[in-house]
């Protein structure tokens, strides 16, 4: 991390993919054409359009992507609306990486992994999934349960169905039936219970708070312990370095002690997120 934490790096947006009607993925490189910084899966960075705003986003590319960083960003406010209007070649500022990553190189090593995501919640997990795929021999069986409102809202649908299915078991679901869909229909938490994943795996759950809540309830009913479940938290952030006080919950700062938490750790925090 740059010791001048408040001075961001200027980065060029080299590629913009439209993932869903309201999610775009931005590929950025620093001015010299290189990856702006190294990160670990689950870590975040502050992306800004000066004059418009600055906000924290999860880095969705994998550390094994050597030449760029990617951010999958959902249009849901002032800054993100502006970001969605960017064109390749334009510049943004980026600072980071911030926070505690998923323990991909220790606690998750050689484990069976169960990824559960809802909607844009796939974004933070995408970095982990791509990392795991790049080092596939280091991990056991991998299951992915992913759902969205509709087929069009499934982020990375093409990559998931053509590439991820090669070395992982992917289970997709959408909330309501559609003509062009012959897959599963239903909400993620229910689908998880139906699939009843093996208890000897570590679950990484990400999505809207309500989906996380019911999914974790379901996992608990199936016999998962809090120590086996990870999630990432989203709170308003400003500094990213544990000083502005914005993301404080109990004695923790989400920007610094999170955003990745294990459920037994979350159980220690006051219920305020």
């Amino acid at each position, binding site marked *: 991390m740059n010791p*001048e934490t*408040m001075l961001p790096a*200027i980065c060029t947006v080299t590629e913009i993919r439209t993932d869903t009607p309201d999610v775009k993925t931005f590929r950025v490189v620093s001015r010299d054409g290189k990856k702006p910084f190294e990160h670990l899966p689950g870590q975040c960075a502050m992306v800004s359009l000066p004059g418009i705003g600055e906000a924290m986003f999860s880095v969705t590319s994998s550390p094994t992507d050597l030449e760029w960083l990617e951010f999958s960003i959902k249009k849901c406010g002032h800054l993100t609306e502006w970001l969605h209007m960017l064109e390749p070649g334009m510049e943004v500022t980026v600072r980071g990486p911030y926070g505690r990553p998923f323990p991909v190189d220790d606690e998750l090593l050689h484990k069976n992994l169960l990824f559960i995501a809802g909607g844009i919640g796939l974004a933070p997990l995408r970095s982990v999934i791509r990392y795991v795929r790049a080092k596939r021999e280091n991990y056991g069986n991998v299951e992915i349960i992913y759902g969205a409102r509709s087929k069009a809202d499934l982020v990375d649908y093409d990559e998931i169905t053509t590439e991820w299915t090669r070395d992982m078991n992917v289970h997709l679901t959408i909330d309501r039936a559609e003509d062009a869909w012959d897959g599963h229909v239903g909400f993620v938490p229910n689908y998880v219970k139906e699939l009843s994943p093996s208890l000897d795996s570590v679950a990484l759950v990400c999505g809207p708070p309500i989906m996380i809540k019911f999914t974790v309830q379901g996992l608990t009913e199936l016999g998962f312990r809090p120590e086996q479940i990870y999630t990432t938290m989203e709170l*308003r952030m400003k500094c990213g370095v544990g000083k502005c006080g914005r993301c404080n919950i109990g004695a923790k700062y989400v920007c610094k002690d999170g955003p990745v938490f294990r459920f037994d750790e979350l159980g220690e925090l006051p219920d305020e997120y």
Partner: protein
Amino acid sequence: MKYLPTARLDRFLEDAAKLRKIYVPVDGEQNRAAYRLWMPGTVVSKALNTTRSAKDFFFPQTENLVGFRRTEKKLEIVDPRRETEDFAVFGVRACDARSFSILDKVFLSDPADTYYANRRAHGLVLSVSCRRPAETCFCTAFGIDPSAPEGDVTFTDDGEGYYVRANSEKGEAFLESLSGVFDEADEAGEKEARAQTKRIADRLPLGTLPLEKFGGGKTKDLFDRPEWSSLSESCIGCGTCTFVCPTCQCYDIRDFDTGREVRRFRCWDSCMYSDFTKMAGGNPRLTQKERFRQRFMHKLVYFPENNGGEFGCVGCGRCLRACPIGMNIVKVLKTLAEDGNES
């Protein structure tokens, strides 16, 4: 040990002002003292403390962090910082002097805030003992000794002048270069002056507070206490308590477009404000109760949990005087220390 008779205070300030800018408390309207740049003729306030704390010197209310210029597609970063001049603050009381070490724990912890660190490096804290602590003072409850404040140089008031002692190399060097204005003194006088202050401090009505119920690890005991509702009931969320507080350090970062460039500012913010944690998707602290609770839980539980048991309050009493509804940390402490349900 050196001694500075009160009659020679002006000469000391005049000489000191030749070495670096020096700020002193000055009386304003309605007995409101505030720090001002010393100039010949400036009268140092006799008030016990300033209305605002001294944190502005190191953590100003607003500051320009960085600027941006945009030309068509290109961006350019402007670092607005100029070398900070050396300065000194005279008259810092024990509570505020301690508040700096609390702010240090936030701003100098890894990764250090370079803006704050730079001001700390250039600033000299000249603290003054409190000859007569006020009824609203409770620094002693937090283990702060008003007769012997921290700081680069301590001025111990004996009613007729000050015993002057350096506590840091910076302070030592400063006194060295001003040696002409001081008399030599022995430590016994300083000891006696301290003892006089201590006798008053030991009898402060709020000098002992039931702190055993608070501190790191007490979240579970305190967070869901029903008393938070009644305590916060009248709070209007004005944020005054956070602004006058020497240890409150939450801030916001905002961009301002001047037309020629975008300036990114940091400014004080308050966890008491309704939009402090508001996000596009909702607000985890929906009512004033949650915001109010956050301020006190942070000072009394979360901060100590992360900082070896040290509380995030220095007992300066400013929030007791400033709150429009008469709420304050002492009431919070006392109310919560009584066992909620005695069953």
